[in-house]
């Protein structure tokens, strides 16, 4: 993964309308963004459309990117996740039969397999996730990493949607308190 300075230079170039910079940013970051999109939008054809749309949005948005807005990779990842979630929420029906991906996201977080640079906040988040009720943690992590809706989580855990909503709210409140204490 490219360092922040290189990504910032490319984003600045895209802001000046340089197609080469967009191509270079695409080469450096598209596997990560496609990975994020594909876990949420599991239809590959639709995921490809989302990916292209994400880079068109980056093309449009790059001129407005300010370093104060945060590091470039999380900024790009936020655009990708938002577009992917919009794309699955637009459909009425609950997604896919494959409700249990079998992934242990927290374990992956502790040992990210693509060797990306550790975020400073990662250890705190892992510790705080570890303190949640296991089912609540599952809901939070599957929602974030796999784009699961409340309805899908209700189906997965065989609970009413309102219970899932309560779980999510409890877990998010507990996470916030824990992270504020940790920092």
């Amino acid at each position, binding site marked *: 993964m490219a360092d922040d300075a290189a990504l910032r230079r490319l984003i600045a170039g895209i802001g000046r309308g340089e197609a080469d910079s967009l191509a270079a940013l695409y080469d450096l970051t598209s596997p990560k963004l496609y990975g994020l999109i594909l876990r949420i939008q599991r239809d590959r054809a639709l995921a490809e459309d989302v990916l292209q749309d994400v880079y068109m949005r980056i093309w449009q948005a790059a001129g407005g990117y*300010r370093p104060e807005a945060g590091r470039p990779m999380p900024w790009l990842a936020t655009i990708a996740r938002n577009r992917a979630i919009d794309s699955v929420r637009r459909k009425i029906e609950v997604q896919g039969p494959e409700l249990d991906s079998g992934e242990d996201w927290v374990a992956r977080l502790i040992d990210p397999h693509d060797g990306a640079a550790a975020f400073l906040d990662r250890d705190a988040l892992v510790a705080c996730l570890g303190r949640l009720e296991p089912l609540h943690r599952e809901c939070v992590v599957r929602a974030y990493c796999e784009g699961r809706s409340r309805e899908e989580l209700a189906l997965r855990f065989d609970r009413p949607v309102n219970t899932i909503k309560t779980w999510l709210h409890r877990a998010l409140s507990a996470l916030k308190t824990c992270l504020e204490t940790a920092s």
Partner: protein
Amino acid sequence: MTGTGAPDPDDADLRAAEYVLGTLDLREREAVEREAAGDPVARARIAAWERRLGPLAEAVPAEPPPPRVRAALLRALPKPGGADARQIEALRAQLRRWRTAAGGAGLLAAGLALFLAVGPSLKPADGRYLAVVQGGGTLPALIVRVDTRTGIAQVRRVNAEAPADRSLELWYVGTQGPKPLGLVDAGQSRVRLPAETTPDGVIAVSVEPPGGSPTGQPTGPVVYTGKLIAE
């Protein structure tokens, strides 16, 4: 969200958290984005949750996309180096000046209104607004008269130059991203607004291939942009 009582800060924070987590439905997501477009406090709540949960994105493995996506992306970009390149560059310079002055038009154009200060919401006095859509100079380039009651916008071109072999396309940019309104003709034209038009929205003009954007989204540089102001 729809209650009339005093807003509960905890509720607002949980909504922001669920927005970032992704568990809101489409209507709830749009409501959060609308709120964030006009409220820096709401934007800060969302940004704080993006920071808190962001490390989880690290857990998701990368996957190389098929090469056709890269090819399609680059095809969709405006061609560089044509006869019109210099004129487009001049328009871009105008855009840069505007961005420096106003900050972040590109973000808004990308539908990321949540990161952008749009200013306080305007009272929809009688549903009529005026957008002076300008580039870098002091001369208004386009005057857009918007009537949200009838859903009609009248566009008058004052000083909007299209580069040769390019069309200028008019967009309404709301919380759902840019919606095409039509091409900017030489004279006055009437365009129909998308249903979700609100005073928080922005009118923008981009440089497109002849006949307009092939993708339904702006593909060229956004050269003009203007906010709606109550008439």
